């Protein structure tokens, strides 16, 4: 519709509203009968899917998520299993919600001086901005677990500890629901992975 259409004076029949109301009713009625027919076909097993319905039957069928979607955080590990994080406090500093708490510990080796003794994220405050991921110089924190369900009954349940963050793994299965994306050539490995 042209934007300026709404400034046009209405015609007589438009001003009575009745033909327009009828048009609207016919439109919704058409959707109703189309969907009713396909619902009927689906319920007697002729059709496997619901034509027209755009709803995902949530707990059973999950909507494919975009690979770049920011889901629950995780901490990545080195080959030897130690956390990649060097407790530089970059993420804690950049976090706009001030929901990351890091306590740094000292490491005996000379190349890597620090590691996180404690690394908590308070999801009750997190706004999922992803700044922590961007700020990290070590690629130690990522938001690619594919976990979207983390509701809890209390505020304590919203606290992610270092152990939990380290135990999460990237969820690839959630991404495979988009074969078109899977078929693309894999991106070049990040510097820290190489």
């Amino acid at each position, binding site marked *: 519709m042209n934007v300026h259409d709404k400034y046009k004076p209405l015609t007589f029949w438009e001003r009575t509203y009745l033909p327009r109301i009828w048009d609207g009713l016919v439109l919704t009625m058409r*959707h109703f009968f189309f*969907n009713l027919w396909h619902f009927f076909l689906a319920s007697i097993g002729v059709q496997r899917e619901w034509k027209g319905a755009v709803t995902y039957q949530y707990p059973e069928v999950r909507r494919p998520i975009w690979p770049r979607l920011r889901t629950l955080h995780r901490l990545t590990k080195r080959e030897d299993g130690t956390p990649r994080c060097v407790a530089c406090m970059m993420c804690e500093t950049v976090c706009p919600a001030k929901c990351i708490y890091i306590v740094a510990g000292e490491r005996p080796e000379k190349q890597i001086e620090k590691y996180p003794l404690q690394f908590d994220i308070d999801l009750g405050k997190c706004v999922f901005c992803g700044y922590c991921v961007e700020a990290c110089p070590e690629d130690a924190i990522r938001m690619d677990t594919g976990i979207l369900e983390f509701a809890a009954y209390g505020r304590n349940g919203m606290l992610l500890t270092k152990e939990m963050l380290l135990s999460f793994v990237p969820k690839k299965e959630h991404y495979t629901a988009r074969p078109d994306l899977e078929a693309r050539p894999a991106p070049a490995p990040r510097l820290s992975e190489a």
Partner: protein
Amino acid sequence: MSEIIATALKILFFVLVFVFSTAALLTWVERKQSALMQDRVGANRAKIFGLRLWGLFHIIADSLKMFLKEDFRPQGAEKLLFLLAPGISMFFAIAAFAAIPFADVLVVGGTAHVMQIAALDVGILYVFATMSMAVYGVVLGAWASNNNYSLMGGLRASAQMISYEVGIGVSIIGVLLVFQTVNLQEIVRAQGALLGGWLPKWGILYQPIGFLLFFTTGLAETKRIPFDAPEGESEIIGYHVEFTSMRFGVYFLTDLIETVLIACITVTLFLGGWQVPYLTAAGFEFPWGVSLALSNLTVTVLQFLGFSLKVAVLLWFMMLIRWTLPRFRYDQVMALGWKILLPLALLNIFVTAAIILFV
């Protein structure tokens, strides 16, 4: 004595079984139909033993939820009225069903029983009298909750209901003029006659404008979209904003019962009530000469089924309207009621009366 038992049975059957189950079913129909209209699947989560039945168990789940939710009473609320108000609304909505005829006469053991809870001669007047009382439940509930916003909502609701009460009353006078009676059973019987030997003489043929006006004002009476300015309890603060759990549930159910009521009255006045085309007291008599004799019981059952079917179609249509049109602004509601519907209804009376008088 047998009269009392018969009446009790009729109340049990028509009000408790028919009206309540239709209203309860409407909560499901509403969710499912809106889903179909909007390309969704709709409520289907509730299940018993793995059985989902297209979400029919949501009726049970909904009512359980209503009973189990916190029953909140605001500070300083008028205790008695706060308790009674939803009930008042519901009582009058149900009481109106007493005069609705749902079939002709059923002969049991030699006595003829009129299939109408109270065979009132003033039928339609009684229905309108009770219907107009429903506004007390609304305004008392709004006042008793000790909340100025809900009081405003209640005033808004009662202003709308009373304005449309005028329109709805005037819009049926045309029908009364055509059938020359206010007895609902008589009105339905008169609609059984055939016009030109084949066309059932339903009220809508004589009063198409009256039908439109009655239906529109009736929709406004039920306080449903597009006239649901009183209802939006969350977004525009309606009269029942302080009502929780089953107190709210009763208001909610009252709305649905009123919807059924409006559908029943529309069917009775305009769509031939329990008349099934070509079905007379003795059986089917088709205009092309074929006839089929049926027993009195079969005829009564068929008449009731015909009545239910018409009510069901009308309810479906009301739901269709509800999920298609947007909400009217409050001043538009008032302007439509007083400046358009009421003058049209008056004009309809004059034209009808002139035609009856001179033709």
